[in-house]
């Protein structure tokens, strides 16, 4: 394995007092930012999409940023989560929380199946095998139109109200809509923070930094990879479930290879291997797309150039570079 010169969180590194405090409270700070976010974004629907895609990119980041495995097939995990949740709600009329549970299950299941096959390959092959397997999932869901709606997509994932602790929230209201999704994303952030702080989190980064040494220390590297892939699938599955509730449809494009590429771009733009980077990347990508399309339909030109510039000059991404600057 090549050792990517990407700086992740290194707990052992000395840092300024307030910075290390911020680092210990990273989940709290990240949550606070997300809670304040709708105040600065004019469109609540767009803000909610940023949350969902941020969570999806965060799922990939665990694998790509922290473990150093590049997957080009994460759309499968995201999409299966979305379809499981969508089918549960639209077809079987299950309540929203069951949809979310099944979405997480779907993402995990897809990750277990794809992971078990793909983990046999290494390096650059891994990216291409995940891409190919994700395409298989795409065609499978495309053909099973009876369940998924095929190319027309799945419609009717309608949740009108959310009842919690005896209080009924109007899910059609844009702001309520945002904060319900935000609540799940915040929960995911805390979960990720715990995982990274756990011994397993240290093992993940150990494998990335030096696989041979990890192996020599008696770590079953393949197993670590598979488990991380599956955990990543759970995050992506949750993101998929939230996507289907957010838009009340699931489209087949969710499973497309371009959706896989999107997560990679968001991760890299924001800063892979950083805690909050994926959200910064998702926000940057979606806002950039919207602002640039204010002036030209050729927004992809700018987005592509920004991405290339990031690869060349800011491999740590926007957030990663910012964090690095603060540490100096």
């Amino acid at each position, binding site marked *: 394995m090549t050792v990517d010169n990407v700086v992740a969180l290194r707990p052992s590194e000395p840092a300024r007092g307030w910075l290390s405090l911020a680092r210990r409270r990273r989940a709290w700070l990240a949550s606070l930012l997300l809670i304040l976010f709708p105040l600065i974004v004019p469109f609540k629907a767009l803000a909610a999409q940023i949350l969902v895609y941020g969570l999806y990119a965060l799922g990939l980041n665990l694998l790509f940023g922290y473990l150093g495995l590049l997957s080009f097939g994460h759309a499968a995990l995201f999409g299966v989560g979305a379809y499981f949740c969508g089918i549960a709600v639209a077809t079987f009329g299950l309540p929203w929380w069951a949809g979310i549970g099944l979405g997480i299950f779907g993402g995990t299941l897809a990750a277990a199946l794809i992971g078990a096959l793909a983990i046999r390959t290494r390096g*650059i092959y891994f990216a291409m095998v995940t*891409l190919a*397997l994700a*395409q298989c999932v795409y065609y499978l869901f495309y053909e099973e139109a009876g369940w998924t709606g095929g190319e027309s997509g799945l419609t009717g994932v309608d949740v009108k109200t959310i009842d919690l602790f005896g209080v009924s929230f109007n899910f059609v209201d844009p702001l309520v809509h945002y904060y319900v999704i935000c609540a799940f994303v915040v929960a995911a952030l805390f979960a990720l923070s715990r995982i990274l702080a756990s011994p397993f989190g240290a093992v993940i980064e150990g494998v990335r930094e030096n696989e041979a040494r990890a192996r020599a220390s008696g770590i079953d590297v393949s197993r670590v990879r598979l488990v991380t892939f599956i955990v990543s699938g759970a995050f992506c599955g949750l993101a998929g479930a939230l996507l289907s509730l957010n838009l009340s449809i699931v489209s087949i494009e969710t499973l497309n290879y371009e959706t896989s590429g999107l997560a990679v771009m968001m991760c*890299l733009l924001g800063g892979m291997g950083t805690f909050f980077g994926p959200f910064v990347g998702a926000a940057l990508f979606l806002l950039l797309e919207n602002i640039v399309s204010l002036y030209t339909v*050729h927004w992809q030109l700018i987005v592509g150039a920004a991405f290339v510039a990031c690869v060349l000059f800011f491999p740590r991404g926007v957030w990663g570079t910012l964090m690095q600057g603060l540490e100096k």
Partner: protein
Amino acid sequence: MAGLTLQLLGLQLFTGVALGALYVLLAVGLSLIFGMLTVVNFAHGAFYMLGAYVGMWLLMHGVNFWLALALAPLAVGLLGLAVERTLIRPLYGRGIDYPLLLTFGLSYIIVEGVRVVFGNTGYPVDTPEILQGAVNIGVGYFPLYRLFVIAATAVILLALWLFLERTSFGLIVRAGARDPQIVRILGVDVARVWLIVFGLGTALAALAGVLAAPLQGVIPEMGGPILAEAFVVTVVGGMGSLVGAVLAGLLVGVVVSMTSLFAPEMSRVAIFALMAVVLLIKPQGFFGRAGLMS
């Protein structure tokens, strides 16, 4: 299955080979670049599309087909040189993911650039007059132009083979693909070799694009799906192996063609299923070497 004759099977086999010919040209370029530079070129589909557009543009301005067939790959190959020199070279040694990501972003720029210049809508490209019509190939009538695509691919492959086997530059390329470190130690200017190999690979992609243009016209998005398929070909053949790319390209073409006959809607998933099966049995592909993978 009614109406299934030996003739139909024969004809189907030929269409598969013609389809495979384009895969081969793309996969050989990809494999050459990967084998030498360990760069997975995600912009390969974009270069293919660019080749088709340049070819279309030349034809539109009265350049004859044969000249366009030479000029378009040359132009795109030059662009390839510039890309390697300015964008990819700074990334060597920074890990295998970075060139991949860079070319991924680059493909967005190229595709959108073409949209800026030529618009969103595609253009038709007429088959050159001399190659129009169909000829009897024994099992039935087959479009002359597709026969030409097969023949042209064979000629290109032969030329490439001679270049790699009979020239000193080819020797360096082959040695470099096996072990770039040793080649560098021997005092060869590896950077120059890499530059030329990248240009050559992109030129091959462009050539495939020009050949494909009369078959399907041109559109900015045409490089996307075929890139995924070309990846499958290189992975099945074994990354970095030219022989593997050729054989796997033809195999994939024929597999697509035969599934089209029996279960057309499965023809695309067949490609990826084939790849999954091959990788499960032989994780390095048919002719891949384990050393290149990590």
